[in-house]
């Protein structure tokens, strides 16, 4: 029990004394996950919306595949990204393996099905007659989707929260693609694993606490934004 309390004390000390390495790790974690979430939102929300409103063959199959992607194990995503980015892989020329860029690609692949599937579901919750009404007001299909998205922004924000939550806490893919290289690709989750394995529980606890706090602050901000909009209703 003592080692837990001692770990907590030392962890808090590391946070409040402004340990440069710990903060650099936190900053990289945040950048990688926010960037990946942003890209996944930019692709996933329009993609999911159009899948929801468009009629096309094998639509149900496409939705099933995207839904399956929501449960994609991060290590599998990481493995495939590593193979593609490896020196002999098809994207080896990018030289992104063991770089934050490679980690972002892996995280986009993990977040994309989540955000796309939740966007499909959110858009399908819009009354089809509402969409048709917007079209009859002179909207192009893209404009009509945009108007509908503004109507379901609460649900779309929830999709963003879910996507970011999955990424900030993800360890398998960033470990494989990033390699957990000190000062380069070490993020909060991989560093926590490493420090735990090395028996440095105080550093591991500090990293864990920072991860929790970051996750909490980002989710708090998004939830605040979401509820403010809900309140405006």
């Amino acid at each position: 029990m003592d080692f837990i309390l001692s770990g907590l004390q030392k962890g808090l000390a590391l946070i409040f004394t402004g340990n440069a390495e710990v903060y650099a790790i936190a900053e990289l974690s945040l950048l990688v996950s926010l960037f990946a979430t942003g890209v996944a939102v930019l692709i996933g929300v329009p993609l999911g919306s159009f899948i929801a409103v468009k009629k096309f063959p094998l639509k149900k199959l496409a939705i099933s595949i995207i839904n399956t992607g929501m449960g994609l194990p991060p290590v599998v995503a990481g493995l495939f990204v590593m193979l593609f980015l490896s020196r002999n892989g098809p994207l080896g020329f990018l030289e992104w393996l063991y770089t934050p860029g490679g980690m972002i690609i892996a995280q986009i692949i993990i977040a994309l099905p989540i955000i796309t599937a939740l966007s499909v579901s959110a858009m399908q919750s819009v009354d089809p007659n509402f969409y048709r009404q917007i079209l009859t007001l002179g909207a192009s299909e893209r404009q009509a989707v945009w108007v509908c998205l503004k109507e379901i922004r609460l649900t779309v924000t929830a999709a963003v929260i879910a996507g970011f939550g999955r990424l900030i806490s993800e360890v398998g893919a960033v470990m494989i693609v990033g390699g957990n290289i000190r000062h380069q690709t070490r993020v909060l989750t991989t560093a926590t694993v490493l420090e735990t394995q090395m028996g440095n529980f105080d550093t591991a606890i500090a990293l864990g606490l920072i991860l929790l706090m970051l996750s909490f602050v980002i989710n708090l901000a998004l939830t605040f934004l979401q509820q403010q909009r809900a309140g405006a209703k």
Partner: protein
Amino acid sequence: MIKLKDIRLGAAAGFNLLIDSLDVGEGEIFAVIGPNGAGKTTLLNLLALLSDAGEGSMEMLDRNAFYGANKMFLRRAMSVVFSQPYLINDTVYKNVALPLKLRGVHDYGCVAEMLELFKIAALKDRNASRLSQGERHRVSLARAFVTRPKLVLLDEPFSSLDARIKSSITRDLRRVIKAAGAAAVLATQDQAEALTLCDRMAVIINGRIIQQGAAQDIFARPVSKEVADFVGVETIIGGKITGKSENLCSVKVGDKVLEVIAEYNAGDSVFVCVRPEDVAVSKSAEAGSMRNHFKAKIISIEPWRLEYKLSLDCGFNLISAVTKQSVESLGLKAGAEVFASFKATAAHLIKR
């Protein structure tokens, strides 16, 4: 303005629709009436370019409406009002301005004008989710007219409103449509609404337009039993023309003979149609100027709109509408014997 010819819409559109011909002119208010599930909404969706193009030709504003490249131009020249007002979660002002925003128009001057016209100027800053159903309908109508459309499609626009609000909005709507010079197509099953608003109308049943023309013609001279039934002809009885003198046909119904002005010939099998409001009931055996006068027994009496509906047995079934005062003054009740009469011009024949 709108010209439909030989339209064949298959089940892929959700409904079979067959229209041989339909024309709506500039500035005309045209109603499409019919029972639930008759195809009114399918027709409106076709006109609103919301369903897949079918066979046949559809011209709107002198353009081929089935040609994809004309779709956006035509959509932006028309407005559609659905039975439910679908508003965005924003202020009344922004809802009314939405069609302008979607067209990239930056001058919102006419928004204020529409808010005034539909009597919702005081609500302009209120969120649409906080409006009553009647106010929501007014916002939906203001939004439909803000772009000064050349064509307005109204799909049962007031079905969820109570009679008082409906009457007030209907009056305003006719005035606005006429002032705008737009053509309008109204789909409704409410005949009173259609009569108040429209210049001409069509009756659609089972996906086919059975009759079109002036409203009074359709109500007085339905061309089929289905149309007669829908437009409120309560007495529809089968008979045979046994004789004809000039235009006056003698129609044998059971053991009775009815006299009806019609163009048919002796020997034709027909349906005799009589509207309830054209059947007079009295206690007097005097026929007066009425050519059809029968002794009748009241089978039942029940409230009907603001009057009473009598079901009479004259040797055939005849339905009559009488006022409350008549019921009281004549002491009408089930089982009582009365005389029922109607003019030869009040009955209408449909060939079987």
